[in-house]
């Protein structure tokens, strides 16, 4: 399932996939795979993304 909330949060900060990837120490393809729902990140990477985007885990990754 696509993670549109992550994409929206990134776009709201005017960050490209590459910039977010550099900030959290992964490749651009990894961020792309998470947004497309092709890859389930570890909790460590989820937290790093949340910290960079100023969001909580619930806001970006919890499917309520």
């Amino acid at each position: 399932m696509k993670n549109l909330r992550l994409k929206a949060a990134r776009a709201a900060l005017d960050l490209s996939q590459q910039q977010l990837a550099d900030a959290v120490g992964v490749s651009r393809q990894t961020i792309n795979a998470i947004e497309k729902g092709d890859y389930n990140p570890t909790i460590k990477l989820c937290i790093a993304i949340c910290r960079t985007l100023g969001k909580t885990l619930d806001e970006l990754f919890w499917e309520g």
Partner: protein
Amino acid sequence: MNYHFGMLIGLTLGMAAGFAVVALLVKKKVLDMHFDERQELARGKAFQYGFFTLLIAAYVYGLSDVLLGRWCDVLTGVTLCIALAICVFAITCILKDAYLSLREKPRTIMTFFALLSIINLGFGVMYHISPGLTENGVLTFRAVNPIIGFATLIILVVYVVNYLLSPRDEEAE
């Protein structure tokens, strides 16, 4: 006796030179082994495919030797199996964007691969022109160079084609 001794010296020197080049590239940070978690996962799967390819290739090579008789030197046969396994590993990694690490520069690595390919294929052509690639219909150990050359060429071509076919614009992906 001299033939085997010369071969041993050549192989030892060749491997020592190879290790020295790789050590230098690691020291100069041209080669780097820092992959992210998705890449590590993809590489694990690729290692699995490469491992099973090596098992199957080694078995098929052994079987061919029994059924067809000696058609290549053992060293050449083993190199062929390893090259096949490495190609499967590398191609799987490339298709999953996990071949190069986060810090490696694609252009530098691919230039290195192109050089490696040209040098080894060059040796292959040289051995083909001045007979030595085969002896009495058996592929000799000299075929190791063209095998390595072909393997690096295949990896290079797959990398370039994959690069050209993947969308540049992230939003298009």
